[in-house]
């Protein structure tokens, strides 16, 4: 799990230069790019970026500032970081020329701004500096008199150049471990919140498909496996195989063409407002059907193989020979043993299922986690990609763990050393 998080992080963060170009456009100057990278903390080495992404950066900043930090959420859903002073007021600073201004948010909601030049500290070389929290959610270090130019990008307003900007930045976040993977570079809002909604939508879609697929595939698999090599077996397994290997988007397109364009039965795309996904249940039909077809083939194949193997075994022959009616042989003796393998394999297959969900969501425009990940990937919103990927990996690893446990439980002959 730890390794996975490192691998994901390394792949995603391998080219921050591209990130800046992608988000800010191809026409930024090198100075602008450098400023942006510095403000986002991308100029730091990979390891320290990884640590602050995984465990948060607020504790590092707290040590530098010497006061506890507090995160508040504004009415519009944006997050702001403030320093909490001894009397409970919240503080942020900014630098205008040579003077340090402090913005004080009092407990009763009043905001006032005053000059706060007493905070400057002199270091050995005689340069005045100060660690504080800026109004851009970073812990920053200001230096008095350093006429360093920085470029600031303001969403919706473009670039502005200021002098006397901070010399060091620590973008504040609580870290993935504590449920805060950072701010989305695309929307400026916290990733965790939008991720949660998307995850719920995806789980609804996957859950419905799962409930339909499981019994159907198991039953068809048992039918196919009963008589290996018969006509019904051939038809079922070849159709199943075809559905499971055809790319999801192709299946989706076929279904849209047949069901929606030619037969005009169900809507061919999903358009949801706030109350997704329950608003228009008929819009769920095609995505679920696509997922069902894809998964059906796979589960069917496994069940068939397992069933066929059981039917060849000696105790089934014995059961037949001692004169038991065949439905009893099949249901009491064969099916019970044949289902052990498929159930665990299905759990392992969740990995694939999630890949399928990504595509199905894109085909039908369903507002799920997969769509969110694709949008983030195209935009190079790396905080969102990392968080989304980690969530998916966690689900996959979790189900694999459950599958292992279930397997030892169902089949006591297996013991892991």
């Amino acid at each position, binding site marked *: 799990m730890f390794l*996975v998080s490192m691998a994901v992080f390394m792949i995603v963060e391998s080219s921050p230069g591209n990130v800046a170009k992608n988000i800010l456009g191809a026409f930024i100057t090198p100075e602008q790019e450098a400023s942006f990278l510095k403000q986002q903390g991308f100029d730091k080495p990979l390891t320290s970026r990884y640590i602050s992404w995984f465990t948060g950066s607020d504790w590092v900043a707290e040590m530098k500032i010497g006061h506890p930090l507090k995160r508040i959420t504004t009415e519009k859903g944006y997050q702001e970081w403030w320093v909490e002073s001894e009397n409970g007021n919240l503080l942020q600073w900014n630098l205008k020329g040579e003077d340090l201004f402090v913005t004080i948010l009092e407990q009763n909601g009043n905001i006032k701004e005053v000059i706060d030049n007493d905070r400057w500290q002199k270091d050995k070389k005689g340069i005045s500096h100060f660690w504080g929290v800026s109004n851009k959610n970073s812990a920053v270090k200001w230096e008095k008199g350093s006429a360093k130019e920085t470029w600031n990008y303001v969403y919706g307003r473009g670039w502005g150049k200021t002098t006397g900007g901070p010399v060091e930045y620590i973008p504040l976040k609580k870290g993935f471990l504590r449920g805060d993977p950072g701010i989305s570079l695309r929307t400026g809002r916290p990733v965790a919140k939008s991720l949660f909604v998307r995850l719920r939508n995806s789980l609804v879609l996957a859950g419905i498909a799962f409930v339909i697929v499981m019994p159907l595939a198991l039953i068809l698999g048992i039918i196919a496996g009963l008589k290996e090599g018969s006509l019904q077996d051939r038809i079922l397994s070849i159709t199943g195989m075809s559905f499971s*290997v055809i*790319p999801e*988007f*192709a299946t989706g397109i076929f279904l849209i*063409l047949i069901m929606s364009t030619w037969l005009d039965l169900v809507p061919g795309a999903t358009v949801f407002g706030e109350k997704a996904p329950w608003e228009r249940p008929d819009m769920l039909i095609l995505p679920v059907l696509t997922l069902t077809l894809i998964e059906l083939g796979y589960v069917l194949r496994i069940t068939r193989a397992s069933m066929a193997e059981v039917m060849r075994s000696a105790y089934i022959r014995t059961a037949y020979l001692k004169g038991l009616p065949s439905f009893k042989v099949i249901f009491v003796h064969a099916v019970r043993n044949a289902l052990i393998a498929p159930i665990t394999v299905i759990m392992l297959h969740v990995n694939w299922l999630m890949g399928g969900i990504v595509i199905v969501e894109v085909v039908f425009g369903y507002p799920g986690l997969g769509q969110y990940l694709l949008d983030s990937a195209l935009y190079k919103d790396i905080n969102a990609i990392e968080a989304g990927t980690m969530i998916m*990996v966690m689900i996959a690893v979790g189900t694999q763990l459950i599958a292992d446990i279930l397997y030892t439980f169902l089949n006591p002959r297996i013991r892991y050393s």
Partner: protein
Amino acid sequence: MSKKKKAFDSIKNGLNILFASKTAVIGLVIVLFWVFVALFAPYVTGYGPMEQDWMNPNKGPSMAHPLGTDELGRDLWSRLVYGARIVLIVLPVTEDIWLPGGTAVIGVLVSLLIGATLGLIAGYRGGWADEIIMRFLDAMMSIPIILLYLIIVAAIGASAVNIVFAIAIVGAPGVARLVRSLTLDIKTRDYVRAAETRGEDIFFIIFREILPNAKGPIIIDSMLRIGYAIFAMGTLGFLGLGLPPPSPDWGSMVAKGREFIMSGSPWASLWPSVAIASLVVGLNLLADGLREELSRYQ
């Protein structure tokens, strides 16, 4: 002479196995069809893949355009054929440099190279080498495959070479696992013991003694893998991470054509979907049939 005869025999043997299975033959026919049209692309179509007939955009099949045209009036059949070329026959490195071997095929070959080496070392050496390699590969494998493709291509950008790179990274852990399990089995055989006693070095043993004896399952596995790679290429193209336009990339064609389904011209998205589906199904039928026959043969 005898060597020639031996080679001939082994080919004949292989063909016998192949033709014994109906499934494999059907698969082979489908795959060969695509290889054929891709090889002779300029001869099976009268149009270039980027040639525009701007008088007839988004038309259905007709005499002039057997499968219809896309939104810019480009002939769909010729785009399909040249798309097959990119998948199976040539790898476009830049606009002018083309390497033989399709994008999917080369991707799988590279993943075979990396995966087989890792698997052989892990399986033969055992111990800490095995531990480290397999832990790392397990970590890679627990990331859902499409997602892995997505983040790799999103991070390094979309081009044919990068897609080869992505296919190789994604495929290597699976190959390594397979090769490792085969190696664990083969390394207990007598001829490996004999080579060890002769004092051969490790590279000779793993590449000359073990690898040739593991080739059957590896070949079948790589057929399936080419199928997956085509699948993945299509998917990436569909997600907008395929070869940059105007290349005739099947997945991108579907994605573009999808916008015109509702306005009554489904052809541009239908045909590439059919093409990908048939090619992947063909490869799977071929591999399945071969595997079934091989297991019976043994």
